[in-house]
């Protein structure tokens, strides 16, 4: 079974065809140069060359120009190119292909030589802008002028702004070709401070002050053979020095243009701000490490990017290792189970630093009562499972001091019934579950069934249809005395009354209102 959501081989072949464009497009340029050369040679020699040379070259030109055009159209279909440049490149490219094809027909006729030369000139005239726009789309708009530009900027804008002076050149050199004005891969532009903060389709590229959480650096630091690694492995890579520059820039708050990179700075930017990004979730790498350690980690709140972490299958991990693994995602955990693991003091210390933790399952571990006291630092902990823990009533203080605690499952935790009562007095709203499995007795029981068949049969419905029900009870109009018209029927006081015309209906109601007691 081939997965139907996977693109078919035909799709893939189609894209492959499109990507031949950057190679094929060079053929018409060379052939055009050849045809121009023939004209120049003829001009200098004063006599015509063998006509078959021109014929061959011009047919090759026509063919390769059409192929370039087709592959170009296919490639454009893949998307990822700036609209304006693409439209111009496409239009000029098509015109080029058409003229090139005409040339092949024109070169055969000596009479239309003037037209042929005009076409040749037109082709040469077109090749320059087509090629330039196309190259700009691939290599970046100012690829050609870049060597001059860097120098001129330093002359034109001598600034102590670290961003413009040090950071932007790194992006310019390694990123802007694909993430710039003409090509916005992943909807991301890295050519200005605002754009970098605004991010792309996966959210903001940097988190000011937090390099580890910044997607930009995460992607740069992935192994080179990772598909997500940036820049792609076949492009020039960032040097360690450049990565250091980016890191220190982000760590120092990702400031640009002298202003701190704050959301207000984004709003003030001339580009409209993107829709509010999701809160930044746990990093891909940290989740991968948890999964490799047999710890289940799953986003259970897509809106807030909160994690459910279940370490129940990681029974061989020691306390410190478990604590260390949990710390990497601590800010994002909303539900945590370390049931049956070797969790102890170190893990509890890690848990105490989880600001969003709401449910915690410690069942079947060796966590001590003293360690439990640290959980008072967890602000939103609402449900705590301490079943099958070797504790005693000494934990009452700890439980009573947890600010948001609403439910505690304490079966076989050593918390006695009496202890539970004491706790309940101190925290009346707290639900304390000691795992009582006593059966609830019925509220009442019917007498032993006695059977008879004396109940009257239910009254069957009358089977009256709507049409029957709305049939008037009279045949003559109560106002005029004329025969009734089925179009003028009213329901009044439980009776269906027919009239001869609309006027009589109105009169009936008028009389009714006039005589009715108010």
């Amino acid at each position, binding site marked *: 079974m081939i997965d139907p959501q996977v*693109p078919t081989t035909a799709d893939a072949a189609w894209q492959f065809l499109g990507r031949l464009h950057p190679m094929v497009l060079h053929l018409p340029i060379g052939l055009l140069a050849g045809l121009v050369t023939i004209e120049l040679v003829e001009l200098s020699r004063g006599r015509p060359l063998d006509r078959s040379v021109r014929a061959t070259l011009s047919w090759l030109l026509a063919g390769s120009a059409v192929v370039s055009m087709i592959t170009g159209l296919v490639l454009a279909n893949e998307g990822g190119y700036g609209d304006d440049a693409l439209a111009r490149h496409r239009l000029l490219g098509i015109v080029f292909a058409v003229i090139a094809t005409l040339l092949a027909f024109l070169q055969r006729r000596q009479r239309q030589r003037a037209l042929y030369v005009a076409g040749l000139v037109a082709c040469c005239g077109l090749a320059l802008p087509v090629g330039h726009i196309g190259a700009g789309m691939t290599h970046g708009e100012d690829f050609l002028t870049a060597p001059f530009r860097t120098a001129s900027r330093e002359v034109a804008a001598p600034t102590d702004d670290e961003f413009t002076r040090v950071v932007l050149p790194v992006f310019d050199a390694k990123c802007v070709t694909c993430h710039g004005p003409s090509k916005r891969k992943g909807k991301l532009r890295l050519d200005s401070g605002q754009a970098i903060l605004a991010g792309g389709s996966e959210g903001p590229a940097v988190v000011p002050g937090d390099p580890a959480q910044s997607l930009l650096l995460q992607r740069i630091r992935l192994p080179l053979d990772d598909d997500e690694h940036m820049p792609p492995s076949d492009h020039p890579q960032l040097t360690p020095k450049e990565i250091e520059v980016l890191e220190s820039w982000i760590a120092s708050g990702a400031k640009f243009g002298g202003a701190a990179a704050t959301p207000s700075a984004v709003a003030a930017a001339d580009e409209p701000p993107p829709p509010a990004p999701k809160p930044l979730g746990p990093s891909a790498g940290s989740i991968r490490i948890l999964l490799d350690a047999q710890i289940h980690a799953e986003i259970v709140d897509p809106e807030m990017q909160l994690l459910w972490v279940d370490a129940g299958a990681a029974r061989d991990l020691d306390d410190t290792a478990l604590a260390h693994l949990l710390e990497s995602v601590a800010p994002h955990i909303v539900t945590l189970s370390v049931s049956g693991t070797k969790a102890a003091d170190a893990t509890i210390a890690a848990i105490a630093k989880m600001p969003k933790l709401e449910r915690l399952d410690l069942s079947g571990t060796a966590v001590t009562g003293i360690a439990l006291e640290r959980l008072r630092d967890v602000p939103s902990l609402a449900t705590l499972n301490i079943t099958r823990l070797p504790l005693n009533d000494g934990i009452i203080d700890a439980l009573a001091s947890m600010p948001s605690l609403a439910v505690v499952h304490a079966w076989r935790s050593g918390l006695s019934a009496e202890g539970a009562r004491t706790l309940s007095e101190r925290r009346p709203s707290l639900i304390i579950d000691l795992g009582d499995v006593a059966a609830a007795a019925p509220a009442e029981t019917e007498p032993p069934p006695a059977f008879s068949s004396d109940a009257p049969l239910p009254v069957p419905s009358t089977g009256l249809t709507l049409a029957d029900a709305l049939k008037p009870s009279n045949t003559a109009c109560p106002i005029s005395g004329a025969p009734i018209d089925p179009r003028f029927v009213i329901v009044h006081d439980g009776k269906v009354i027919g009239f001869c015309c609309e006027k009589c209906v109105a009169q009936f109601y008028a009389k009714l209102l006039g005589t009715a007691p108010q």
Partner: protein
Amino acid sequence: MTHEIRPASHPVEQHYLDLTRRRFFGSCARTVTGALGGVALGSLLGPMLGAGQLEARQRGVHARPKAKRVIYMHMEGAPSQIDLYDYKPELRRRFNQDLPDSIRQGQRLTGMTSGQARFPVAPSMFRFSRYANNENGVWLSELLPHTASLAKDICFVHSMHTEAINHEPGITFFQTGTQQPGRPSFGSWVSYGLGNINSNLPSFVVLISQGFGNMQALSARFWGSGFLPSEHQGCKLRSEGDPVLYLKDPPGVTRADRRAMLDLVGELNEREMERSLDPEVRARIAQAEMAYRMQMSVPELVDLSTEDDETLALYGSEVKKPGTFASNCLLARRLAERGVRFIQLYMRGWDAHNNLPDEIRKQCAAVDQPQAALIKDLKRRGMLDDTLIIWAGEFGRTVYSQGTLSETNYGRDHHPRCYSIWLCGGGIKPGVSIGKTDEYSYNIVENPVDVHDLHATLLHVLGLQHEQLTYRHEGRDFRLTDVFGKVRPEMLA
């Protein structure tokens, strides 16, 4: 262990492979179906691709779930709602009266009773008691005293109805959302949508208990994965002998030998994958690796020696007999503890066309204490809050007797127009009754719930939106709820 995807020899093939990954994990993540496509491929490539698995897990739920796992007890054969849950005391005064035409309204009957000269009303011979719940209480039969004592935790639905009138299409409809065989089962949809919790056990496990009455065939496709990738099908654990056949290494083969064999076969399969580009090859590799991990995890799972006497006593005297409903309920708790996403218990033998009182007594005796024990055990372990429990048959049974009627013996035919089921646990409103039937328990008079509504509601509890959980097959997006289904807020906590 990790398999690396090695570059394919042909550039078009390599490009294709790149596309599958890039398209699923990159661009398609923007669309909902794409996100689920990502899930599909992510779990398909499973452990082989760290990134894929990550993606799958991150794209699981659509909203915050109330329950993280499911224990679904299916009562094969269709229990009688009239003798268990749908209290109709007035019927006792209609003993042996004919079922009025105004109630039956010419509805179709099965071939087993359509030839009967009369349709004599058979009131339940069992005594009912009222148990306090979070409303005015609920009347329940003497046959299920343990279950009834948990009325404060249970949501009874008295107005369930279905389209099928026979077992095979009935179970198929209830399990897959359509009467025609071949669609993915509820459990495999959940497995596909949410993935594994514990990578050492399958995400969907099926346990079967034999009944005491008339038993109908149970096809493996009731827990099949249809067109979903095949590692999402339910894994049936056998009750006798090895829980999973051929899981143990034969004498003389060490675990290291097995590992070496799997590595070699895995490598050959990788080559086959590159050649054929068939994702089912991946599923095959994933399943072989799962079996290898299950060699360690399953013996530990079924070893009940770590359970203390008090717990064993809670489940009743049959708990140590493999294959009994009691034993399977205890296993269900152990599976839930170990992170199995979807646990399905089948109890066979509810198809009481004749001798209903005798058969239903035995059936209830087998299920009542164990299923109540399962709820209590989960509850005291703090696990009921995030476990969704379902108890349902494929349809109900008729108010009229099939065959001879006496005060103490009668039979009941299939009845799809109304029946009772119950739900309990995470996300479910506890201690309520939903829906009403007429005085004959024949037609629904209030709040009907169809199978698609139930599925939509259950998926909602698990954090999945039934309209977004789709899979593209043969050119269209399929859902568990087809083009139907409404989430029913009255069942939700």
